[in-house]
């Protein structure tokens, strides 16, 4: 039995990242049962250097997904439980006076990890929320005049309770925009639920699983995402989608240029995972709902309530170019 859990990776051909991703996805699917599409989307989000917002009721497996992802990718992992009295210093860290050296010493907060799980982010006050979002945006933290870079890769998975629950501060639209995708896990179907109930504890199972993708490999893949070929035809299609959301009266406001860029990156990541040499319309369509679902506010009379409805409506309103 080999002691080094990473040793087997050397046996996979270095140039075949798709195989590595596929094995990661199938491994994660054994932990989170019946949610392969959501797992793939989370992977695509990670590859596109975006951050992920998971919105669902408590107990749907949000935390497990984050934990499993960190484990399978061999990333350092920190979990921050957001509460109503959490302060920014609790997230980014604090300077403490060191009596031995007669100087201040910065104690890094939980944000200094490769994968950070911000649990129940909408239970914190806006002040704490914005400390997290600023760190996400800048990829660095500044305290006492010192700038500390965050680790690389850096991936935040924030979870959020549905906003109608008591004691929540819903993220404003400007901050929702910082997340590349928003996912909903949803209830498992009956067969998978039975499997979950009859099977072993997920945490035990996870600890036995090997790392399938090294951080170095992840960085290589992340660098390859923007290089995936985008044809003019696909750009036409993307622009048609964006311009539809701006001219349609179904939405309060259309997609921003940043949203268009996010859509393109996500589609590129998806195409890379599918092994396509160029982005296909289907790649774009696959990531459409998670990317635009939280960015568009439907007009009051538009009869579009769920993010899936928004995505389906936009998708069916624009012809493929």
């Amino acid at each position, binding site marked *: 039995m080999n002691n080094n859990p990473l040793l087997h990776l050397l046996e996979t051909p270095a140039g075949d990242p798709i195989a590595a991703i596929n094995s990661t996805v199938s491994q994660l699917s054994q932990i989170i049962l019946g949610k392969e599409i959501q797992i793939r989307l989370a992977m695509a989000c990670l590859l596109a250097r975006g951050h992920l917002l998971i919105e669902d009721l408590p107990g749907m497996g949000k935390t497990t997904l984050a934990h499993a992802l960190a484990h399978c990718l061999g990333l350092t992992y920190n979990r921050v439980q957001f509460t109503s009295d959490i302060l920014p210093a609790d997230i980014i860290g604090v300077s403490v006076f060191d009596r031995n050296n007669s100087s201040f010493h910065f104690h890094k907060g939980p944000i200094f990890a490769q994968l950070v799980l911000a649990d129940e982010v909408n239970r914190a006050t806006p002040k704490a929320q914005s400390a997290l979002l600023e760190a996400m945006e800048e990829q660095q933290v500044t305290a006492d005049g010192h700038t500390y870079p965050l680790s690389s890769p850096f991936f935040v998975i924030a979870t959020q309770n549905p906003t109608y629950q008591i004691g929540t501060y819903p993220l404003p639209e400007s901050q929702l925009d910082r997340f590349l995708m928003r996912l909903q896990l949803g209830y498992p179907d009956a067969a998978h639920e039975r499997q979950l109930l009859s099977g072993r504890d997920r945490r035990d199972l996870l600890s036995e699983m090997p790392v399938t993708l090294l951080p170095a490999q992840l960085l290589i893949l992340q660098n390859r995402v923007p290089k995936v*070929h985008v*044809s003019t*035809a*696909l750009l036409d299609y993307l622009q048609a989608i964006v311009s539809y959301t701006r001219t349609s009266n179904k939405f309060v406001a259309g997609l921003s240029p940043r949203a268009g860029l996010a859509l393109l990156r996500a589609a590129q990541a998806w195409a890379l995972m599918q092994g396509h*040499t*160029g982005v*296909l*319309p289907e790649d774009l369509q696959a990531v459409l709902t998670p990317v635009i679902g939280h960015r568009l506010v439907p007009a009051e009379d538009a009869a579009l309530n769920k993010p899936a409805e928004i995505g389906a409506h936009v998708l*069916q309103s*624009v012809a493929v170019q």
Partner: protein
Amino acid sequence: MPAGIAMLRVQAWPESARSLGMLSLMLLMALLPHVAHLPVWIPLCVTGAMVWRLWIEVHAAALPNKWLRSIMALLALIAVLVNFRSLNGLEAGTALLSMMAGMKLLESRQLRDYSILIFIALFLLFAELLYEQSMILLPYLLLSTTFIVTCLLHLHDGGSQISFGASLMRSTRMLLQALPLAALLFLLVPRLPGQFWVLPSHGAATTGLNDEMSPGDVADLSLSSEVAFRVEFQGTPPPKSQRYWRAVVLHDFDGRTWRRHRSELLTPQKIITSQQTYRYRMLMEPSNEPWIPVLDIPLQTSLRRSMLTSDLQLLARQPVTQLIAVDVLAATEYQFGVSLDETMRRLDTQLAGSLNPRSRELALQMRAASNDDSVYVNTVLNLFRQQEFFYTLQPPALGAHTVDDFLFNTRRGFCEHYASAFTFMMRAAGIPARVVTGYQGGELNEVNNYLVVRQSDAHAWAEVWLADRGWVRVDPTAAIAPQRIEQGLESAGTYNEALTGHMLSRSHWLYQMRQNWDAVNTFWKARIVNFDSDDQRSVMSLLGFSNPDWRTLGWALLISFISFFAAMMLWLGWKYRPRQRDPVVEAYATLKRKLSRAGIDALPHEGPVDYLSRAALAKPALAGELRELCDLYITLRYTPDARPHLLNRLRQLVRQLPA
């Protein structure tokens, strides 16, 4: 809000009321030119109907019910019938159409009714052209037509969704596009020689010549500056004193009134003329009378269906009711009627009963004192010249013995008085004589070298028969007021008479303006309104067709139309040419068409992979080809690996796919 106020606030009108307001305005525009020749109650009724209809719309009241509408329509019909005693004819027709437009407005509520109103308005507007075709009307017609077409477009475009300005732009553009076609039709539609249709006389009072003359009656001579006819001479025109335009010859005299003879005299006359002849073309304004004024002796005319009487009146078969052009060859030095038959002699020496005894006595005395007839003529002219006779346009009325009264009492008069008195004196002495009325002089317009003869140039003179010389023109007015003949009527007035139409000629600038205006008008009448088969022939010969008949014209018209529309089609085809020329896209479109024929329609938002996988499931036999097609298409369209041979393969596969 009090009733009636709401109607004044156009901004607050409902959409439908604004449409109706626009339609009412349009009807008013079409009706306006007709106001002059319709009885006043018709425009009033139509306007009343408009106000009523708008009131209904603004106040959301009910439309008059069917019975009321039927009764009103019937009343309108009866009113027109009573007024004109007919429903036929130009005036009765326009009256009926105007009334019915008003009635139609009262039941209009939807687009279909509006369209009918619009067509009625166009019809009314063009009916005005049957009355007159003057140039001054043209801008108004163009403006109104544009407005009406704009209304049509605007209402059909849904009114509120588009601004009126945009509709106006569009209709103007469309009318401009129609201009070449209109020009083609104008040039090439074969013209029938002569009048295309004879317009019914519409009873306009003529200010021109009458066929009788009563110098004794109180009559201010009408000084209308309306144009009687225009003449274009080939070569130099005769001097002013020679320009006598003969129109009507008056033989019968009852002591007060001179009249034409009841039957036309048609004995052919021998005419001897000098070498000097004048060839000219005359554009005659409608006079509603059959006679055509001609320069003294007409030798040839181009007028069809006309006759020349033995006293040399040129008569058209029908009254002249529209502008006509006549080519004439005429002479001003001539000799005719040397041999006078007995009937003629008796006719032209008769004097009614025993009226005017003092003049008869004077005539016999003076004739006895003269050696021969020509000396006697001069003696009478000298009488006018030497005694205190005055030329005036406002002479006093004459008593029962008109000639006596004039010669011995009033001694004031204009051409009619002198011509009448002179002719009477001749007849009293047994010399055959008659009165001729027509026009004298005319004003030469230097701008286009046209001679313009106006109604105010109307004149009367005498013709005396002298042995060996035949009929000789004698103008007694020339004896009393030679400037009338030399310079025209304006200079002849001895009293300070206001010649309204002629005040203009006092100012040089205004005079120039008038000449220019008349030149433009002449061009309009001669070249546009009166564009006939001859003009058509000359235009066609400019284009290289010598002497074209109607068949050539028809072909030319057809070919021009076909080329016009072909050019339009080419242009439109070029403008709306398909922009998509990508062969990959075209091949994929063909593929989709073929699969669609097989019952597998592509959804607009369906990507190629999804669509072709679905097709492969539906057509397992073609699954292999479809999979390859899908790969080729996405490679060519979405990846950087596009190669020409892949395109060829794609096209080949699409071609081979069973339809």
